[in-house]
């Protein structure tokens, strides 16, 4: 193999796929990136057996070929080289020579044949949507997944490819984020019933895979991407990149059941004012504490926000609020509120409430396109 490419392209490529490389694997090759040179580009592949990522960067290929190199070491070297052309060549013993201006490194690689193959994804359901929409879906939900490894089911987002829409749902049992985008053109490969079984009601994609994907998605309109779901895998494919992930096996909780169907009180606030007030108030709460803020409406049309930490002190903030229904007194985990508010682009948000111990629904106030919806169900904390 002998190829030439831009240092920046190669560095960013190695960094991007390198994130799925497993940190401490018993299998040395899983800490490597596969380099494959053919037809005017260099492919970079990494996997930890759960998530696999494959990207292509432009390259001049003198001699086709393939090898694997340790991701971290090569990333470190590339990160500190000047921006110029990089030449890569491999000898028959898988020793890689990396040359850039006057820097020259030889790195022991491993044979490309030993690198695990990424799974083929066939049959099932697929749809093509705008990258920007998928990016938004992921941003609006992935923060709400559980970080508790003992509840593997909840460490992923339920993803439904429906007729004309795509929906993502995430919950850690304290809060629930449900986001839906229009996605016309669903294709179902009918004959592959085995691959299709159960896929219609949604599959659970590990949040890790979604976060890695979101990093490479563009926010600009016009760029498309294909989603392909089977019973065991999901494949995201776009120009120069594909990401495949195993799915989390199991039954996602019945989330529809916990979305309140009605409300008794309604608060409308400016998103940034609320977020800023919560952020300030939260600074008084020690890390690892309960993170509780109490929201109370006043007679003067204000919302009192208080946070208390025994040893530190007390925070009191007020913002303007438009209220329907009776006075409100309710406590929430401030981090959970901030998580949602910080990804909301709408100028105002509405919180719909029933009682102090019933779930509240937070929604952006915006004109919604057909098939588009977003809501965040938030369970309160007990006011003692």
């Amino acid at each position: 193999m002998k190829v030439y490419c831009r240092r920046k392209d190669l560095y960013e490529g190695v960094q991007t796929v390198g994130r799925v490389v497993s940190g401490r694997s018993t299998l040395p090759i899983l800490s490597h990136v596969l380099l494959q040179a053919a037809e005017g580009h260099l492919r970079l592949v990494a996997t930890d057996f759960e998530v696999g990522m494959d990207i292509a960067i432009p390259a001049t290929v003198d001699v086709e070929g393939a090898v694997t190199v340790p991701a971290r070491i090569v990333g470190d070297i590339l990160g500190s080289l000047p921006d110029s052309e990089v030449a890569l060549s491999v000898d028959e013993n898988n020793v890689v020579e990396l040359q850039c201006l006057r820097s020259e490194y030889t790195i022991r690689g491993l044979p490309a044949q030993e690198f695990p193959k990424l799974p083929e994804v066939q049959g099932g359901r697929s749809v093509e949507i705008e990258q920007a929409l998928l990016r938004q879906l992921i941003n609006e939900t992935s923060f709400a997944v559980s970080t508790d490894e003992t509840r593997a089911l909840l460490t992923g987002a339920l993803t439904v490819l429906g007729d004309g829409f795509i929906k993502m749902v995430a919950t850690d049992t304290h809060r629930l984020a449900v986001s839906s985008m229009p996605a016309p053109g669903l294709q179902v490969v009918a004959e592959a019933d085995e691959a299709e079984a159960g896929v219609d009601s949604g599959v659970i994609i590990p949040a890790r895979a979604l976060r890695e994907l979101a990093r490479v998605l563009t926010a600009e309109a016009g760029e498309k991407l294909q989603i392909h779901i089977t019973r065991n895998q999901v494949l995201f494919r776009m120009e120069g990149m594909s990401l495949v992930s195993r799915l989390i096996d199991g039954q996602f909780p019945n989330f529809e059941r916990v979305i309140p169907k009605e409300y008794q009180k309604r608060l409308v606030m400016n998103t940034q004012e609320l977020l800023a007030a919560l952020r300030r108030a939260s600074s008084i709460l020690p890390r690892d504490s309960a993170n509780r803020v109490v929201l109370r409406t006043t007679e003067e049309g204000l919302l009192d926000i208080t946070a208390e930490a025994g040893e530190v002190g007390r925070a009191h903030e007020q913002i303007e609020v438009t209220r329907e229904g009776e006075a409100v007194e309710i406590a929430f985990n401030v981090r959970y509120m901030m998580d949602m508010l910080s990804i909301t682009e709408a100028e105002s948000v509405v919180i719909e409430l029933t009682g102090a111990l019933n779930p509240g629904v937070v929604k952006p106030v915006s004109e919604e396109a057909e098939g588009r919806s977003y809501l965040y169900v938030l369970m309160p904390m007990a006011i003692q």
Partner: protein
Amino acid sequence: MARTILHVDMDAFYAAIEQRERPELRGKPVIVGGSVEDRGVVSAASYEARRFGVHSAQPTAQARRLCPEGVFLPVRPHLYRQVSRQVMAILRHYTPLVEPLSIDEAFLDVTGSRSLFGDGEAIARAIQARIRSELQLTASVGVAPNKFLAKLASDLRKPNGLVVVPPDQVAAFLRDLPVSRLWGVGPATERQLTRLGLRTIGEVAACPVAVLRLRLGAAGEALHRLAHGEDDRPVEPDTEAKSIGRETTFAEDIGNTATLERVLLALAEEVAARLRRKGVCGRTITLKLRFADFTTLTRARSLSEPTALAETIYPVARDLFRAVERDRKVRLLGVTVSNLTPGRPARQLNLFVPLDDRRERLAETVDALRERFGDAIVQRARLLRRDHFR
């Protein structure tokens, strides 16, 4: 202003409790500890047994040779802990500044209580009287201006002793005591001091501090201060523990998974009860495991919310345990909860599980029952066979 510190030390605690529970044992040499078969050691010996040369930490086999007529009893830790709680409750009646040193001794700072209950001596007598009348046990008490002197004093006239060291008699009190009585002086330091010709605390006090520093470094200065009866360590009520844990070493190494998991449950339950007693809850659960060959490992996991319930602690400890590759028998298991926060967890309600504090209420009820009637009053069915764990 001079402080008034008490050191309360229960006399032959385990043995005295056994004699109280079984009056026919009164006046007899009672030895509590591990069995000879288990290569056990003596945990406590009654004063009658001590006359035969039996003392704690001695191998039980040796104690049996010294005192063949002795009544040898197994340790009943749950009973002793329950009595210990009753003792501490009496002590806390006189001051909130109670620092338990172990199951059967504690420091008290009663400086602020003197206007309520009288001077240190009066408080000491009141404590001794209550322990005698309410618990049918005896305690020895030292009263002094600091912890070091109070502990020395309580030890001088056991059992049922009361020694008061007034601030103006500290020097006289210490003068003729052997250097081994100084806090931190073990056999090695004692030898070094002997080489300097220092055998009594009075001689250490008279020795220039520079000489001690030269021979013993910083420790020498500390010794000099102690020899002068100076010790400004405060009495610290143990409310600010960083972690709460419990571990147990088996009499025989165990390989059986079911047995080991049962031990984990018992440990989790005990740790949970202690968390509740201290009014704290914790977020990080650590499993400690020592194999027969003494290789020791710990595994920890943090929860999203703090807990003080065995029902939460046990499954995590068990999962950590199951994730360990076990190819040898296990010698020791331990469960610790850290990352503690005071109070009950500020409850984050759950979307899918309706608000249910029945488990907390159940745990509190069980705690209250055990406090009153002893740990055996309520048991998990799985733990009814407790003989594997003490």
